[in-house]
């Protein structure tokens, strides 16, 4: 499999604090990489850097061999879904989805609409195309946001804690959509706190702490027998056995 994303010695600072310290990684086409780590470890910042939302202080980020920061424009090969509901509140679901394909890619409106409806059907929102974001539940909003990202046909999809703001009963409907995307062979980088989900979807797990990559392993290995003590500690925070003892 060819490499889609290559990050070399990435350094990101906010003022004096170094948030990402010499990060290097690659993502192959069709691979699903889950990024784990405690809050504030820099994993969201990593996704934002790959999406060119942050300027970087060192290293380089290449998509298909092309530096993402050249030209100051967004690389259309990358798509991202955010943690907070980022649907535009003044547009209907359908308008949210068709805005960018029509205005940015100048695609045919009718054709875009058909594709949007097709995708909405696939995520179970067929009847919601005329709804405004305020009329949707959190889970529905995130599914619509995923569709909005998909219709641009990105090659790399970034998910930044997309279920973190959801009520527990809505988490599953969103995660199932992402699992479905994995089955279709989409290349994805996922930041999440849902450990079961991470284990089920990941081809590879990368753990970040203190701005550095601590461990990089297949999920079975990472979750059952991690190489590092730090990863073990981190995984323990998700169980309550130590509390009972």
């Amino acid at each position, binding site marked *: 499999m060819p490499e889609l994303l290559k990050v070399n010695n990435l350094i990101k600072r906010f003022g004096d604090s170094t948030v990402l310290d010499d990060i290097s990684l690659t993502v192959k086409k069709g691979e699903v990489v889950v990024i784990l780590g405690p809050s504030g470890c820099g994993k969201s910042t990593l996704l934002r850097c790959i999406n060119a939302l942050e300027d970087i202080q060192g290293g380089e980020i290449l998509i298909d061999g092309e530096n993402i920061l050249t030209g100051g424009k967004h690389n259309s090969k990358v798509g991202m879904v955010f943690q907070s509901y980022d649907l535009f509140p003044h547009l209907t679901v359908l308008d949210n989805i068709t805005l960018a394909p029509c205005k940015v890619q100048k695609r045919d409106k009718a054709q875009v609409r058909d594709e949007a409806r097709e995708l909405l059907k696939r995520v179970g929102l067929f009847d919601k195309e005329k709804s405004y974001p305020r009329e949707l539940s959190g889970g529905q909003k995130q599914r619509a946001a995923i569709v909005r*990202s998909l219709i641009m046909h990105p090659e790399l999809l970034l998910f930044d804690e997309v279920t973190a703001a959801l009520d527990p009963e809505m988490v599953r409907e969103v995660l199932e959509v992402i699992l479905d995307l994995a089955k279709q062979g989409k290349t994805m980088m996922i930041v999440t706190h849902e450990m079961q989900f991470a284990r089920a979807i990941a081809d590879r797990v990368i753990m970040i702490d203190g701005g550095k990559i601590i461990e990089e392993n297949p999920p079975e290995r990472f979750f059952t027998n991690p190489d590092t003590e730090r990863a073990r500690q981190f995984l323990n925070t998700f169980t309550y056995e130590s509390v009972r003892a």
Partner: protein
Amino acid sequence: MNAEVLNEYLPLFGNAALLTVWLGLAGIGLSIVIGLICSLVQFYKIPVARQIVRIYIELSRNTPLLIQLFFIYYGLPKIGIKTDPAVCGVVGLAFLGGSYMAETFRSGLEAVDKVHSESAFTLGLNKLQTFIYVILPQALSTSIPPFVANVIFLLKETSVFSAVSLMDLMFTAKDLIGLYYNTTESLFLLVVFYLIILLPVSLLGTYLEHKLGTPGVRQSIRKNAASRKERKTTIKEGVVNVGN
């Protein structure tokens, strides 16, 4: 009150009210233009222009319109800038209103969540597209209630136009009181005409505030109100139960 006097004064006040409305609308229109430009300069943090806008806003907001008008109408001609009363009134009102509109539009723009411009960027929209399709529509809907408040404020401020010898409602009232001592009728018509001008705008403002607002905000307010009601009833029930 004398009906004959009222009848006789009515057209005088009517004309004066028209003058007030025309000058007010012209000044407000100009304020909107100034306000939009200033708010964009501030929102996009354009260097130098930003500092100039800041100084303008402070000067405009921290001085009364009457003083601004005196300076424009009586002061400026002494250094060669002459204006006729109507122009002076409109310019003065725009000088005052521009800063109020600028602050309103700017806070509307700033109220748009950053994640929306980031999503727009992620979807490949350029800066102009992001502004037109994503930021502006949201900013406008949050700006509407304070915008209407500004319009009312500026229409009220036109009442000092008589100071630069514009024959507006105040001028007419003062004139008629001074000349004929028909104080009651003059004051009555003065109040009535200001109500005719201001009340519809004020009602429209209240209506829009309830109807429009920001979609998201409106919903969360409603939700809070609903859950508050719920909680209240549960508490009441709880009290009843304890009593039983």
